[in-house]
């Protein structure tokens, strides 16, 4: 039993005292990135087919396409997963390469704000076309 416990405890006593190691939210981020990636596998195929179907279409045709409940739902799902996955990915990139803390926090806030803005723009536009 003791052996199992010590095997599971990956952090040394000194490391714990000094506060090294994860901030206890790393797994959630990692999992969210993978789960959104898995959701995007079929959605990407749907997206590419949709773009091909809508190639050269006018606005009336796009509206008719989004008016179909299946397309509206799939496009909304695609937008949510896509922007969520983009945010998660950009977070990792910024955290990896921007070492100055002030600049990093500022850039993370700007990035999240921009992703939220364009994500909402896409979502509202799909809803307006669908309804």
């Amino acid at each position, binding site marked *: 039993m003791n052996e199992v416990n010590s095997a599971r405890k990956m952090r040394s006593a000194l490391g714990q005292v000094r506060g090294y190691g994860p901030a206890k939210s790393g797994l959630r981020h990692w999992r969210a990135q*993978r789960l959104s*990636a*898995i959701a*995007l*596998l079929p959605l*990407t195929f749907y997206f*590419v087919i949709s773009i*091909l179907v809508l*190639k*050269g*279409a*006018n*606005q*009336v045709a*796009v*509206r008719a396409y*989004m008016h179909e409940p299946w397309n509206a739902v799939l496009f909304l799902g695609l*937008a949510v997963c*896509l*922007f969520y996955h*983009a945010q998660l*990915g*950009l977070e990792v*990139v910024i955290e990896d390469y921007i*070492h100055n803390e002030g600049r990093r926090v500022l850039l993370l806030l700007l990035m999240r704000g921009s*992703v939220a803005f*364009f*994500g909402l*723009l*896409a979502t*509202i*536009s*799909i809803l*307006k*076309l669908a309804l």
Partner: protein
Amino acid sequence: MHDVRETLMQGRNSDGQPVRRPLSPHLQVYKPQISSVLSIFHRLSGVALTGGVVVLALWLAAAAESPHTFLIAQRLVDSFAGQLVLFGFTVMLFYHFCNGIRHLLWDAGYGFDLSTMHRTGYIVIGATLLLAALAWVVGFAIG
């Protein structure tokens, strides 16, 4: 806080001047390999594709705005520059898609040995080019 490795990187050159030695992994002398190049390109394509989702959002907004705005958007997409950008996004999308599957398989514990890793790397390159070509051939065939 500075990188702790920097303490080991203080040196003096032949004139006795203090110099900061470069930190590992010395990208300027590192030989590009299929493993590292594909990994870097995964990030690069991911960051580039966030530009793609912004374009997608603007395209949808143009359609939601009015038939006239959408006409302008479609003209931009149909222009030579627009088509070039769109082709770039297609390649990036399929690359990120294929290499993403490779990453998911690694996460599940498969494909770690060197020969398999190299083989799947080349499969990803091949599949990317094939899917991108297929999408554009179908696109042209539709007219």
